[in-house]
């Protein structure tokens, strides 16, 4: 199929018939993000990396929900698991002789992957799908929050856990990330790498099978694909990424509390992705960044009503723009092209 043919899409369709321009736009977005510290300083540069990590969290959900049709209310649970892992590693692993933060990134990714694989394998092999899967992920969030609250000797309970800022190191060379700009760049690189990794997945054979599962799971099964394995792998990749993003969040925010694992935060992730458009990675990323910063701004202006505003927005999108903003933009573009 020629690339030109791929750009034309039926209105309202998830762009599996994918537009070619998205990576170009994405490169532009990352370039702008990379330039921002040269133009701004202070709070913007401090806070933006956290929103970018929310963007990664949103992309991890887009992989699961947009590509494979599995909605999860458990992403925050994995994000918090990553943050706590970072905290514990930095506190306890200093003696091992390697950079504790590196260790934390690897362990958090492994932990998320292993937990999601175990849970996913049993669920998907038993044919659990759709809303039943959603309910299980909801439970995962609650379990994560309860452990964070209950195991206070490890996690600090309601008081949360303080986490020292990580440093980069390579053999003897050490580079502390104390300044806002330095850790900003580390996170921009991580976000861009995640985006291009997920984009590569979505266009590979694996991604094509996921699209098939989203559209018609029984048919994919009848074509001889081991659907439970594909779904398990997707859940595992999604969870691993959410954990890694959480680990970086922990070291950036220097603090993690149980609410980071909670259902409320998980629901926010779903709202970002739904509003921005779940079928596009870039939309999910921008949704995570933009909607979470708007939420933050709103919560400062009107602490009582900001969640109501977000909720109404969510309902409107679900009612009128199933594909979210990305879907609407896409429909508009397709309309203009005739």
């Amino acid at each position, binding site marked *: *199929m020629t690339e030109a*043919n791929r750009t*034309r*899409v*039926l209105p309202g*369709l*998830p762009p*599996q*018939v994918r537009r070619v321009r998205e990576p170009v736009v994405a490169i532009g977005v990352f370039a702008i993000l990379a330039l921002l510290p040269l133009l701004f300083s202070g709070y913007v540069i401090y806070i933006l990396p956290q929103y970018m990590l929310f963007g990664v969290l949103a992309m991890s959900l887009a992989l699961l929900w947009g590509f494979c049709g599995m909605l999860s209310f458990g992403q925050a649970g994995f994000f918090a698991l990553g943050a706590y892992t970072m905290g514990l590693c930095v506190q306890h692993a200093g003696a091992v002789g390697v950079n504790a933060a590196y260790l934390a990134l690897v362990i958090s990714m492994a932990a998320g992957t292993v937990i999601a694989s175990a849970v996913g394998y049993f669920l998907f092999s038993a044919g659990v799908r759709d809303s039943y899967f959603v309910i299980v992920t909801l439970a995962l969030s609650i379990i994560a929050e309860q452990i964070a609250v209950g195991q206070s000797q490890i996690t600090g309970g309601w008081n949360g856990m303080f986490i020292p800022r990580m440093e980069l190191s390579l053999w003897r060379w050490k580079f502390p990330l104390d300044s806002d700009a330095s850790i900003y760049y580390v996170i921009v690189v991580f976000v861009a790498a995640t985006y291009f990794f997920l984009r590569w997945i979505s266009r590979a*054979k694996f991604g*094509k*099978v996921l*699209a*098939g599962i989203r*559209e*018609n799971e*029984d*048919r*994919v*099964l*009848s*074509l*001889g*694909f*081991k*659907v439970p394995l594909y779904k398990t792998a997707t859940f595992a990749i999604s969870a691993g990424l959410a954990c890694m993003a959480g680990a970086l969040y922990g070291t950036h925010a220097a603090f993690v509390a149980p609410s980071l694992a909670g259902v409320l935060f998980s629901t926010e992730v779903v709202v970002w992705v739904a509003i921005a458009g779940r079928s596009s990675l870039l939309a999910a990323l921008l949704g995570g960044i933009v909607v979470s910063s708007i939420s933050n701004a709103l919560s400062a202006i009107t602490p009582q009503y900001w969640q109501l505003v977000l909720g109404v927005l969510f309902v409107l999108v679900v009612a009128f723009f199933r594909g979210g903003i990305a879907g609407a933009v896409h429909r508009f573009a397709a309309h203009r092209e005739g």
Partner: protein
Amino acid sequence: MAELLRAEHLTKRFKGLTANDDVEFNILAGEVRCVIGPNGAGKTTFISMISGHLQPSSGRIWFRGEDITRMPVVERARLGIARKFQTPSVFNRLTVYENVELAVLGTGRPSHRREARVREVLELVRLSEQSNRPTVMLSHGQRQWLEVGLLIGNDAELMLLDEPTAGMTAEETHSTGELVRSLARDLSLSAIIIEHDINFIRNLEAPITVLHLGRVLAHGNYDEIARNELVRDSYLGH
């Protein structure tokens, strides 16, 4: 011709109801067979046991001499048993090309041979010109054909076609018969077809098995079946 599939004493009970009762059936490689019968005769149940979507209560199924009675759907699909459902089961929001591509991906062909294979299959089911269109934009008949294309692209050896001409125009129905016959003749693809359209069945010139209340009522070519008093009473007379 070698025997491809054999079903022995196949019985399926749903609580009080016996949907299939001691059904015997066999099909050779490259053979086309029709299964007819009134509604509720157990035709779809029979197909579902062959495809693995239902487990028989008793009896055995052999494919190329291998006992596949307890084998799950996925593994049967990998052996080459592919099913077309009553309502077209395709990927509506993917393009026609992407639909067949998924089927070809399922065969594990090396990537440089995939595109040629997809094109070849699209040519066979006469959808080459639609290849870049989203599947939702196809006519009902074309979607039926696309699903047959999925089976071919998936390297099926035995196609289970549940009412493949449902919702088709007379012309589409005719070409569907031609397609099935040419696939059997040229590619040695076997097919078990459930149908109600009696003209379609007559044109296929394939052996017919009549099911009634879950049992095999008669077996033979079209003329033998049409002459059979029992079949007339239970089915053709309606």
